[in-house]
């Protein structure tokens, strides 16, 4: 069931009414309702993978309890953690990366004249597996690190893992943030629910009006790249940047809004990334839940471990500097970003995209200067020329990297980069790009003026006639110009 489908337009209000009509019932019953709704939501996509979802959840629930209640030594706890990591990453690896690694192994062995045949398994990728696996993994890791006390409430835990607003494409929630919300009575707040509806509307506008309408132009740019000039390809890449932002942040807005309607707070996943003045700030504002996950569970452990090793070495070599060299941090960052690329998909295009994004960060890491804090032009309407130049630079670099992300093969990406450089930029007119460019500018302009607010349609403080006028205008725009193809969200494939 897609958020941008008529089915969801019936499903969400039904769950909303049912959930709040049970607000005086025992909490377990409320959670059971949310669990049933979430499994229905997921099962309508493919009921066969419900068992995988349930199995993964029950396993982590059990291992976490064993870790806290039965494991008597640190070694036993570690074994249970390794079992959780092994099963979760094994399942993810099998469904997502099996074909990729088999292909790579085949290519490698063929270099030595070995043939392992061409038969491969046709494996369907269960939607959302990358997201809910990371969510359950964080639970196991946090229980192991004693950041979270494991819950004994199985229903609440299953509902936490499968919570339908964020099940298939995040935000990737931490147990310490979301699980407690299933364990206490939720109180309806009308103002919050109204703002949730606004956020859902803004998410729909970004997805249906902007992203899905840009998809056609982007498809032309990437599908017919061999016939396009350099400027058209550049515009196509920039449009893809806006498309994927509106697609994914639109999904996140709908997810956060739907959760808020039901009394839950989810993590903000995008925070006006176009207005970033450096790459560090960009990644603080883009797909926040994944980046903080990778920071907390991969990057920081690597850094801490490196620092420990460095301190041990310093004891024998006092001439060493107090902190490990910056290049080591840069290497860790590069590894994390490459991993992030691989998380997005089993393709070298994603791996290289991640590596390139990591590379962008190296100069900032080596300089060891703190990243820009707060939102740009916090107390002003407009940015300074310097800020504007830095924002343009960051966005141009990210746009270029996204050519890799969108291309089906490295060859296609290479061809597009080559044509951007070698083909003339102004030899033909580019009028056909004007409409999609205007469409792409719309959310950026709105979010500039709303950059200090949690979402683009946070206008609860406006007078009611103005608010209703805006809602009406957006709904009319959705009806008249929204894409009707009910395109899947791009991040569903990850």
């Amino acid at each position: 069931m897609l958020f941008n489908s008529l089915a969801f337009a019936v499903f969400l209000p039904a769950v909303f009414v049912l959930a709040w009509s049970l607000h005086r019932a025992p909490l377990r019953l409320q959670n059971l309702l949310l669990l049933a709704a979430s499994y229905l939501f997921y099962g309508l996509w493919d009921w066969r993978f419900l068992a995988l979802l349930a199995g993964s959840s029950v396993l982590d629930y059990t291992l976490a309890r064993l870790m806290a209640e039965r494991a008597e030594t640190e070694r036993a706890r570690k074994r249970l953690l390794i079992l959780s990591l092994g099963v979760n990453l094994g399942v993810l690896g099998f469904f997502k990366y099996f074909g990729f690694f088999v292909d790579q192994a085949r290519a490698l062995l063929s270099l030595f004249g070995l043939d392992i045949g061409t038969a491969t398994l046709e494996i369907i990728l269960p939607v959302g597996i990358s997201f809910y696996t990371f969510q359950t993994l964080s639970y196991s890791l946090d229980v192991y690190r004693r950041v979270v006390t494991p819950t004994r409430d199985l229903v609440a835990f299953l509902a936490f893992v499968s919570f339908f607003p964020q099940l298939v494409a995040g935000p990737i929630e931490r147990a310490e943030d979301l699980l407690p919300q299933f364990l206490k009575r939720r109180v309806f707040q009308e103002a919050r629910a109204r703002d949730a509806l606004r956020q859902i509307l803004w998410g729909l506008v970004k997805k249906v009006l902007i992203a899905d309408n840009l998809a056609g132009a982007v498809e032309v740019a990437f599908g017919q790249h061999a016939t396009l000039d350099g400027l058209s390809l550049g515009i196509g890449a920039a449009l893809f940047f806006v498309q994927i932002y509106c697609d994914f942040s639109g999904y996140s807005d709908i997810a956060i809004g739907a959760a808020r309607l039901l009394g839950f707070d989810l993590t903000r996943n995008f925070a006006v990334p176009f207005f970033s003045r450096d790459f560090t700030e960009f990644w603080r504002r883009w797909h926040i839940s994944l980046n903080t996950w990778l920071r907390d569970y991969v990057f920081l452990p690597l850094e801490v471990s490196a620092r420990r090793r460095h301190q041990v070495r310093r004891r024998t070599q006092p001439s060493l500097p107090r902190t490990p060299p910056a290049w080591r941090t840069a290497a860790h960052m590069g590894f994390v970003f490459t991993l992030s690329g691989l998380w997005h998909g089993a393709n070298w295009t994603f791996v290289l995209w991640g590596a390139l994004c990591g590379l962008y960060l190296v100069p900032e890491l080596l300089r060891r200067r703190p990243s820009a804090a707060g939102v740009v032009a916090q107390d002003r309407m407009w940015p300074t020329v310097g800020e504007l130049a830095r924002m343009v630079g960051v966005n141009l670099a990210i746009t270029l990297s996204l050519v890799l992300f969108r291309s089906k093969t490295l060859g296609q990406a290479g061809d597009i980069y080559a044509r951007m450089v070698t083909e003339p930029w102004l030899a033909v007119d580019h009028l056909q790009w004007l409409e999609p460019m205007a469409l792409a500018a719309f959310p950026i302009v709105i979010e500039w003026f709303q950059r200090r607010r949690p979402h683009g349609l946070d206008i609860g403080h406006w007078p009611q006639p103005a608010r209703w006028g805006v809602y009406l205008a957006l709904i009319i725009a959705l009806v008249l110009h929204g894409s009707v193809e009910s395109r899947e969200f791009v991040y569903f494939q990850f």
Partner: protein
Amino acid sequence: MSSSTSSSEQPGAPAPSAETRAGHPVVRLLVRAALFGLLALGVLELLLRFVLPARESPIPWQEPDQSLLLYDPSVPDGLFTSGRLAEQRSPWHINTLGWNAGIEYRPAAERDRPVVAVVGDSQIEGFYVAWPEHIASRLSALSDGRIEGQSYGGSAFQIATFARIARYLGQHHLDPEVLVFAINRGDFWYTLRGYGRPRAQLATWAFDPAAGTFTETPPAPYRTTTMRRLMRTSALVRYLVFNAGLNPLAGGDGPELGMAELKAFPEAEADFQPLIGPTTEHLLDEVAAALPHTFVLFAVEADRRAIHRGEVPAPIELSAPIAEVCRRRGCGHLDLTDAMVAAFRADGQLLNFPHNAHWNAHAHDVVARAIYAWLVEHDRLPTKR
């Protein structure tokens, strides 16, 4: 360390506030949302009635003789639009027999000029163009009014329905001098393989290769549905269904593809090709029985997508088997590929709408000219009665 404990361990959970206990905020939100929803629906309804007109469709009516799905003549006029912003607009007129045409169809005995009747699917039904631009009207104009062009088309009409139209023309003594079948990809496939439920109002045929016989499954009775009633009442619903293409039953200008634009061409498959000839012959038998003095011409659609790419495509897979039958049976065969290629090369104009696969006015004119030229060249242009 944060503490996550079981709900069952929280007997002292805070009691709901007075507001929540009363349940009012939820109800208030629902009422406000409903009020806003009604306002939005009202504004959209007005907008789509008076500013950006949603497609107006005539009311379907199944005529009693051949169960053809025509239109209720009691609602004779409207504006047909397509596209998200109603970019394409054309008025329609339902004549007293229930066909979309700018003229009345009279029995042969009552008319003063011969008729060339064009039979086909929704392209020939012609809602996408105004009557003066329609192929039938263009045929009259090309002959300086010496012949009358008539059109008998309907959504998804195919070979089995064409046979019923021939019977209908005979029953109503309309007896055209020339009957032109506009053939599209899918016409034979849907005749022999059926549609499934949404198109059950159309006849289909079953072919017994051993006996060489055809059996007809007649059209199911047309029944209106709640959705159809709603479409008549609400411009917003019509817009969403037709202009925006949200209803999978009806298709729309986005996902809707005419038969000529099918992505797969099952009629090209080796096991289907041998069925085209016998099916064509059976159609000719039906026409001969119903309209013994009528000359039949098959005008076969071209691969317009290839033409628009600048290619000179091969005739579509139906063309050769039909030509073969016509050589034996004496009917006419006109493949439209050459005419369409020449037209596109001459001025680069598309032969359909940018967002819709149906013929535009230019294509209607090109096809009318090709048919007229063929009739003249083959001395088949009917003369005064």
